[in-house]
């Protein structure tokens, strides 16, 4: 135990030594940040978003800073599920924390094939990304309408023997309906939110900044909306929820946990402070002590 504060949490039967998880796409497969600190300190790491086949990602500008946030249009550049299974997993296993494979897709078949392969590999959890706004075909389409999501989650559920997290898009028509549909379709946990569909224009060039016109907004700017979504989903579903969106500080972590989150993911903050994982963890212990919280599970959902 850290200084008499219990930070250990359980999500869908999986034990996390603390509720901090590195968010998909912001942390690679962990090895770069591991040069700066022992990323095994974190509760878990969600891998860069995988697709069945390798992808080069999007052309043009991929990242753009905004007020208290950033936009990205990486477009799921990744080595593909097979390469991940062959090399990535072993690498991530070294860290000794929970290994979450994040997987996106373009078609029902890709999702099913990819999930089948990952389910048979040495991962702890599968995080199904039905919400990436940066791929033209499919991708977010699955994350907008609850009935479409329900179908894909249901199919993936059938082939996935590992605990299944479904990652929701804040662009969903109705986040609560979406959550309920995914729960019904067999999700063991939900994670939210992914990035918000957003836009930037280069007024000098008189053109959208991103080749794809729209890109995904993340960072502190979105925290209040993400927190609302997590709160409203937690009030309605039975499965555990992983809160994501603009979490930068230990205070933010407590807000999400009080809103009902079982764990949280940190994304953009890693770019602002490459030691964010270690720093927030440290602060969280002290903050809990200060606030008289001896077990983080005590305060879950008290708001």
């Amino acid at each position: 135990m850290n200084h008499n504060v219990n930070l250990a949490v359980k999500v869908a039967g999986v034990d996390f030594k603390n509720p901090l998880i590195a968010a998909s796409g912001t942390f690679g497969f962990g090895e770069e940040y591991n040069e700066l600190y022992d990323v095994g300190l974190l509760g878990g790491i969600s891998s860069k978003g995988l697709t069945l086949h390798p992808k080069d990602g999007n052309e043009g500008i991929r990242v753009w800073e905004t007020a208290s946030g950033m936009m990205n249009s990486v477009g799921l550049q990744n080595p593909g599920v097979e390469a991940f299974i062959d090399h990535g997993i072993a690498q991530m296993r070294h860290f000794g924390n929970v290994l979450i494979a994040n997987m996106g897709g373009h078609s029902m078949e890709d999702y099913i094939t990819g999930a089948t392969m990952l389910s048979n590999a040495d991962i702890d959890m599968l995080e199904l990304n039905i919400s990436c706004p940066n791929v033209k075909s499919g991708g977010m389409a699955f994350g907008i309408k609850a009935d479409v999501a329900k179908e894909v989650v249901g199919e993936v559920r059938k082939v996935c023997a590992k605990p299944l997290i479904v990652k929701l898009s804040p662009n969903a028509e109705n986040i609560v309906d979406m959550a309920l549909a995914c729960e019904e379709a067999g999700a063991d946990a939900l994670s939210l939110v992914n990035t918000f569909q957003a836009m930037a224009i280069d007024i000098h060039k008189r053109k959208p900044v991103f080749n794809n016109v729209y890109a995904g907004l993340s960072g502190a700017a979105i925290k209040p909306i993400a927190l609302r979504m997590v709160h409203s989903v937690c009030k309605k579903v039975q499965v555990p929820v992983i809160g994501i969106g603009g979490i930068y500080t230990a205070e933010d972590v407590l807000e999400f946990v009080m809103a009902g989150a079982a764990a949280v993911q940190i994304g953009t903050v890693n770019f602002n402070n490459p030691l964010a994982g270690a720093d927030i963890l440290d602060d969280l212990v002290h903050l809990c002590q200060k606030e008289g919280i001896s077990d983080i599970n005590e305060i879950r959902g008290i708001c």
Partner: protein
Amino acid sequence: MRYFESEVIANRQITEDIFVLQVERCGAEAAAGQYYMLKSWDTELTLMRPISIFKAEPDALHFMYRTVGKGTAKMAELKPGDKLKLLGPAGNGYPCDQISGKVAVVGGGVGIPPLCETSKTLQAKGLSVDAYLGFRDVLFAVEDFEPWCSDIFVSTEKGEEGYRGFVTDLLKPENYDVVITCGPEVMMRKVAAMCAETGTTCYCSLEHRMACGIGACLGCSIRTKNGMKRVCKDGPVFLSTDLLW
């Protein structure tokens, strides 16, 4: 590569929009062509900003930067004694060990500063280095190249100083074994094309918008002949013949 806090020793304004920031070095190897991610803010700005090593002295790192936006404007406010955060040294740098013969460094705008440390490193190896430095209108950093270079050629767009036109007009790649270039993409492309014609080895240092600066986010990926590469980690220096542009 480390993430650490350092203290500002000096922050001198050189021209209207060019500054030299000098910070305590705090150990760590740092090679010519590498860069640091810098921030002198907390979360007011989301991302750190990449700035190349202009000079690496035993006790100090020097960065020469142009104020173009919010981040560099905040850097310009730094005063001696102020703290800032550094992440680095980052990137691959120039392969100075593998370079021999006569070298030309060809820089434009704020692509010039990293070539200073490069010239120094190559000169220290006993190589002869000529510098081709292209400016918009006002010169900067030229005197910093003098100790390390045999010849220095300077150009400005309208001829306010030195040659009138582009510095690439002055370059003859056939006179060199290796050409190293850093600056606006159009300039580097021109240099690369000229080197391709004469078969001269050419290294280009790319600029790209970055988020993490350490290879994790894939925000800076470019397509190369060897597949997707991260400018921040696999670069910023690439052999011109590996680039697709």
